[in-house]
């Protein structure tokens, strides 16, 4: 059976150069970077080299990079760490409604602990407006966090404009670049942000590694207290192999960024163009053009996402969905609902995330296998039934 992996937003394979670079650090170069002997020296040098690669992907100073265990830890460190460090100045945080749970839930935890949080909405394409952020600001606002781009719907945010707003008010601005790093050019100074999170595992590096870039001078309370690793900003023995793998992955992503993005975008565009022709009552979600090069996201009306995932898996295709049934929390996507997609329609969401291993033929395969699956599930669906009986045929996607 053909295998077509189109779920790179959930996981990417580790690029061979990265796993090869990691191998010695899982073997004889097993030292602890804090150790004062040859084993320690080798590990320390490897971590510092990786730090340079990661910094270089962001045009940042290596001394400003804090390695973490992933995107979630980077976001939690930023949100909680900046908020607590500036608590004397104020108590209010502004984020968007479509942030990843690692930002959203971190902010909600802060809310329980006495902070106030404003969640700014988005338009139908999932765009956060700089004016909306500006309006949400208060004299006691100490932190703004808006992501570079949303992975579920692909929409790229006007982060530079929001940064200008933040700067004008002297408020720290964090951005979650987990879904974007390696796919969009990122220069922390050009962006004008103060802190930025990335993860290794969406970048063809290993899971278990990530990084938070924090501008010199921005105060941060550590999330992981412990030793003096990472300049005293993140305790714990460094995940040396993970960090080394992330470094190589970041270097390759940086070297290859434009070409990668181009290839991914061409497959994305093919699917976005053809799928709506092959399946009726299907809609693109997110911004029509200003979106991540790897992201093609849709809603398929009258059916639910998990069923599609299971049947697609049976024919070798891996994708994901934001439906309630596919989430362990049994809640529909907060992102789609923020975009105004009705809950029933959001249940039929499908996310295709392209990767370096995909070929244009993978799009053909999806176009071949998905329409009959949708048809079959619609035949089972009481909703489609009703729709047809109520004189279906016209598009009912917008209710």
């Amino acid at each position, binding site marked *: 059976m053909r295998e077509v992996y189109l779920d790179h937003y959930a996981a990417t394979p580790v690029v061979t150069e990265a796993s090869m670079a990691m191998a010695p650090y899982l073997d004889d170069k097993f030292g602890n970077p804090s150790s004062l002997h040859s084993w320690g020296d080798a590990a320390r040098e490897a971590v510092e080299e990786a730090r340079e690669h990661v910094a270089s992907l962001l045009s940042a100073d290596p001394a400003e990079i804090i390695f973490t265990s992933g995107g979630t830890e980077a976001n939690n460190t930023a949100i909680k760490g900046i908020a607590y460090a500036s608590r004397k100045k104020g108590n209010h945080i502004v984020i968007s409604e479509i942030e990843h749970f690692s930002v959203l839930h971190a902010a909600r935890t802060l809310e329980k602990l006495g902070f106030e949080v404003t969640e700014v909405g988005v338009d139908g394409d999932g765009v956060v407006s700089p004016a909306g952020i500006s309006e949400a600001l208060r004299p006691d606002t100490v932190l703004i966090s808006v992501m570079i781009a949303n992975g579920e719907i692909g929409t790229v945010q006007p982060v530079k404009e929001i940064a200008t707003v933040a700067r004008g008010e002297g408020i720290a601005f964090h951005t979650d670049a987990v879904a974007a790093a390696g796919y969009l050019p990122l220069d922390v100074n050009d962006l004008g942000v103060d802190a930025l999170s990335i993860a290794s595992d969406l970048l063809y590096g290993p899971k278990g590694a990530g990084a938070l870039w924090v501008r010199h001078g921005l105060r941060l309370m550590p999330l992981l207290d412990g030793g003096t690793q990472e300049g005293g900003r993140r305790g714990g023995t460094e995940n040396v192999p993970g960090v080394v793998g992330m470094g190589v992955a970041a270097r390759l992503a940086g070297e290859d960024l434009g070409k990668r993005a181009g290839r991914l975008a061409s497959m994305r565009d093919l699917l976005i163009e053809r799928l709506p022709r092959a399946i009726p009552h299907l809609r693109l979600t997110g911004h029509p053009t200003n979106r991540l090069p790897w992201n093609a996201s849709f809603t398929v009306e*009258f*059916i*639910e996402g*998990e*069923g599609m995932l*299971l*049947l697609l898996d*049976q024919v070798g295709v891996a994708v994901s969905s934001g*439906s*309630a*049934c*596919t989430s*362990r929390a*049994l809640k*529909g996507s907060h992102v789609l609902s923020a975009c105004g997609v*009705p*809950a*029933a329609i959001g*249940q039929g969401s499908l996310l295709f995330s392209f990767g370096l291993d995909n070929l244009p033929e993978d799009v053909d395969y999806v176009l071949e296998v998905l329409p009959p699956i949708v048809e079959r599930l619609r*035949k*089972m*669906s*009481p*909703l489609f*039934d009703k729709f047809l009986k109520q004189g279906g045929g016209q598009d009912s996607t917008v209710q």
Partner: protein
Amino acid sequence: MNPRNVGEIEDADGIGEIGNPVCGDMMSFYIKVDDNDRLSDVKFKTFGCGAAIAVSSMVSEMATGKTIDEALEITRDAVADKLGGLPKNKLHCSNLGADALHNAIEDYRSKQQAGEKGDQDG
């Protein structure tokens, strides 16, 4: 995923509906009842996850041929057991399936009563 008894019964004796697509699950059950109070035909339509579909199919199979009273004894646990267990967060699906069937039986009974009443009244 090869569910049995997917579909609708045009002249069903009872129809049960449960759930809401907003929550992610919705099921419709259709039953045909013979003169011995047996479910001679059970069909369903489901909007929902793989478990909801599997549960619907299993409930329809378990119910077919049973008397109404026997069918009312189909419980959530029995369904989940027959399916070889369900993950924790999918257990509510087995409830939904049994409930939709029970609703269809309710519907049949209330129609019967209405009919009897109608007979008496008439």
